[in-house]
């Protein structure tokens, strides 16, 4: 009997850092099992063992990826039953949250999204209303479903590693019925930079970038950062909508957020104000972003950023 079940969806060749974080949290709740989809290669299986997973469940059907959310939720419900887990942990991605939502209804289980920390008794910590409140929440049901944001715990392997057992879970047929089918799928071009929602450092630009994200991209690459943008910059078409940080885009909470040429209207503030350290560069001394910045520079981003990039490269040798 496992206490916690971690959902790991199609990791490919290696587990993402966020999956390792989920496994680390799960272990603090007790014996951990994994509900896995996709190809399970030896390296991934070994990592799962190293992070304390005792059992890895796999679905009886392979085409779960051809459907949206529904069948994965049905599979996960069956895996919860097989494992006896009382806590289920998923990524806080849009799909992770939706699978969590449907799973909750299937299991009569309380769902808590956007979790940043979990206590041993299942109490979840989260930040709500655009970071203006910290709350604790708990499910009142036998099973708790938690979607957990990335970057809130340091991944740590278990003391003793052992190869996990594997078991197959029958995916209920009704999981495929009443589901939307994915008719076509194209991978988005990769930037080679970290994922915005998981990045340790984010460099974001707004209206002041005036169409040229070049200096931001160069600084981001020197820092190993992701590139973000305000709504003004994505609406102007200077950068893809995926890069949008804010209330209607991605909410980020990195160690360092560098805001360049963004005034810091409430829409944008909502998406970044829980960042650990905020640096702001803006020509306009009256920009609201300076009210929340730990370090503010009133100046021209086209001068300040390249100078900082060159200096970082120099110091890093």
């Amino acid at each position, binding site marked *: 009997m496992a206490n916690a079940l971690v959902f790991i969806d199609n990791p490919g060749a290696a587990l993402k850092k966020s999956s390792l974080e989920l496994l680390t949290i799960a272990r603090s709740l007790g014996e951990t099992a994994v509900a896995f989809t996709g190809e399970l290669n030896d390296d991934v299986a070994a990592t799962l063992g190293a992070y304390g997973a005792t059992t890895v469940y796999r679905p009886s059907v392979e085409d779960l990826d051809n459907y949206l959310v529904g069948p994965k939720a049905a599979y996960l419900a069956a895996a919860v039953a097989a494992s006896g887990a009382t806590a289920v942990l998923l990524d806080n991605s849009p799909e992770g949250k939706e699978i969590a939502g449907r799973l909750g209804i299937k299991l009569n289980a309380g769902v808590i999204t956007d979790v940043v920390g979990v206590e041993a008794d299942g109490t979840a910590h989260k930040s709500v209303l655009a970071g203006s409140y910290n709350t604790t929440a708990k499910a009142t049901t036998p099973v708790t479903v938690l979607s957990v944001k990335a970057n809130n715990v340091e991944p740590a392997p278990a003391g003793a590693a052992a190869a996990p057992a594997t078991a197959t879970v029958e995916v209920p047929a009704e999981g495929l019925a009443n589901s939307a089918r994915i008719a*076509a799928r194209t991978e988005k071009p990769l930037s080679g930079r970290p994922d915005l929602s998981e990045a340790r450092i984010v460099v974001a630009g707004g209206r002041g970038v005036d169409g040229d994200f070049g200096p931001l991209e160069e600084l981001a690459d020197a820092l190993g950062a992701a590139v973000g943008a305000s709504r003004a910059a994505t609406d102007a078409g200077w950068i893809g909508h995926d890069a949008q940080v804010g209330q209607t885009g991605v909410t980020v909470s990195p160690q360092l957020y560098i805001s360049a040429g963004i005034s810091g209207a409430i829409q944008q503030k909502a998406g970044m104000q829980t960042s650990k350290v905020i640096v702001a560069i803006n020509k306009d001394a009256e920009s609201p972003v300076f009210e929340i910045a730990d370090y503010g520079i009133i100046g021209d981003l086209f001068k300040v950023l390249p*100078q900082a990039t060159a200096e970082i490269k120099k110091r890093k040798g």
Partner: protein
Amino acid sequence: MEETLKIVVLVKHVPDAQFDRHITGPGNTTDRDESILSELDEYALEAALQLAEERGGPKAGNEVVALSMGPSGAVNAVKKSLQIGAYSGVHLSDDALAGSDAAATSLALAAAIRHISADGRPVDLVLTGMASTDGETSLIPAQLAERLSFPQVTFASSLDVSGGQVSARRDAGAFSETVEAQLPAVVSVTDQINEPRYPNFKGILAAKKKKIASLSLADIGLDASQVGLAGSWTVVESADARPPRTAGTIITDDGDAGIKLVDFLAAQKLL
């Protein structure tokens, strides 16, 4: 002409994010004074109106019903939707609903949608925004689809309906996807799908003549123990206002601000 549609659009009355928002009371629920129609719901309403207009609008038999669940003030979200162009409105309101979590909310909304389906023709499409701008969980479309046994098509950035099938483009994750599902379906749309229209003078006048049906829990066949704080599966145990961020060091660039920035990052051990 395409087949006509009966569309329910979920609209939520949320605290205006332009002002400070507060959590109050024994259930740690959101204070709903100063509330407005959730901005993200306007995209769903616009998508519904476009689908209905392509099919000849109300005269041809299309229906666009704005449904809101919430206390008495939430009727304003329905009224605003009618001014923008929804054909009729439904306000689900009952004291027992206060404090409902996503599970309880989806239960009540599913029951309301079944009620709307039983009144005239069945609902073909339930349209929602990508999230509310207050709770921001994005759980409702998924949970509603599960409760209604409808397929869900979420985070649609474009939408097509024909031949009893919905087809949508979805760009939410690492992939761009084309997703297809049979009607009836629950579809959530992003803020990339359209430019919502504003209510004009004619629309504001016309809204006064449009019908808003009020539903209670009893009307939709639920009792008080199934919803609200009593029927929720999660409880918010504490809510602490986060101390506001304060400004730190502000410097004006004298030609070496880039170097000073790197000094700051090094001191913070962020390099």
